[in-house]
């Protein structure tokens, strides 16, 4: 890679946001989503990956009425409006929880650990929360 590609105002970096936590039990899922929505406004290459309990963030039919917390699961639908299109869900994590892509609130790319490994290794910045 040439020097001029690495700096200057037009540099585009590959950012990956990693979600490994279930929603509601902790705030990390919500606050990570808030970062991603802001990040989308920058002209960077954004990916979002859900693995381990993070896949549970995307489960359909969330109803938080009885726990009194804000249901933010609909907001994942906004990722597409913000042109965040690289959304990966680890196959192994989904299967371990007895879930399938049909159970999720948005269309995603279900990806095996073997392939996720390559996607992760291509990132420039990895932000976990």
């Amino acid at each position: 890679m040439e020097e001029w590609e690495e700096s200057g105002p037009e540099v585009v970096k590959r950012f990956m946001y990693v979600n490994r936590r279930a929603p509601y039990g902790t705030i990390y899922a919500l606050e990570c989503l808030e970062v991603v929505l802001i990040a989308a406004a920058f002209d960077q290459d954004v990916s979002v990956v859900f693995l381990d309990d993070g896949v549970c963030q995307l489960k359909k039919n969330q109803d938080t009425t009885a726990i009194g917390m804000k249901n933010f699961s609909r907001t994942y639908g906004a990722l597409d409006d913000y042109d965040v299109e690289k959304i990966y869900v680890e196959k192994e994590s989904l299967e371990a929880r007895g879930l399938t892509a049909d159970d999720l609130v948005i269309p995603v790319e279900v990806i095996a650990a073997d392939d996720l490994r390559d996607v992760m290794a291509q990132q420039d910045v990895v932000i976990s929360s």
Partner: protein
Amino acid sequence: MNSMLHLINKSPFERTALDSCLRVAKAGSSILLIEDGVYAALKNAAHAIKISTRMEDFSFYVLGPDVAARGLGDTPLIEGITVVDYEGFVDLVAEHEVTQSWL
């Protein structure tokens, strides 16, 4: 001997709280899954065996509001786990002499 209610609020996929509880809790005790602990109640999950093999030792309960919040109202739970609401949670605490939280 006091009757005990054990509270599990952690996902069995991420933490070992449920394992420790199942190792140390006395047979005959009750176990209530709340917050992220409700994922342990998923029937079709890899970890279902942790609970399904211990149904004779413990009475299992799960907090319905936490199940619904996580979108699991449409997802099969392990047979024999009783779903309770917050008032049912209070009743369980009242009915058992001691409550232990597995933090």
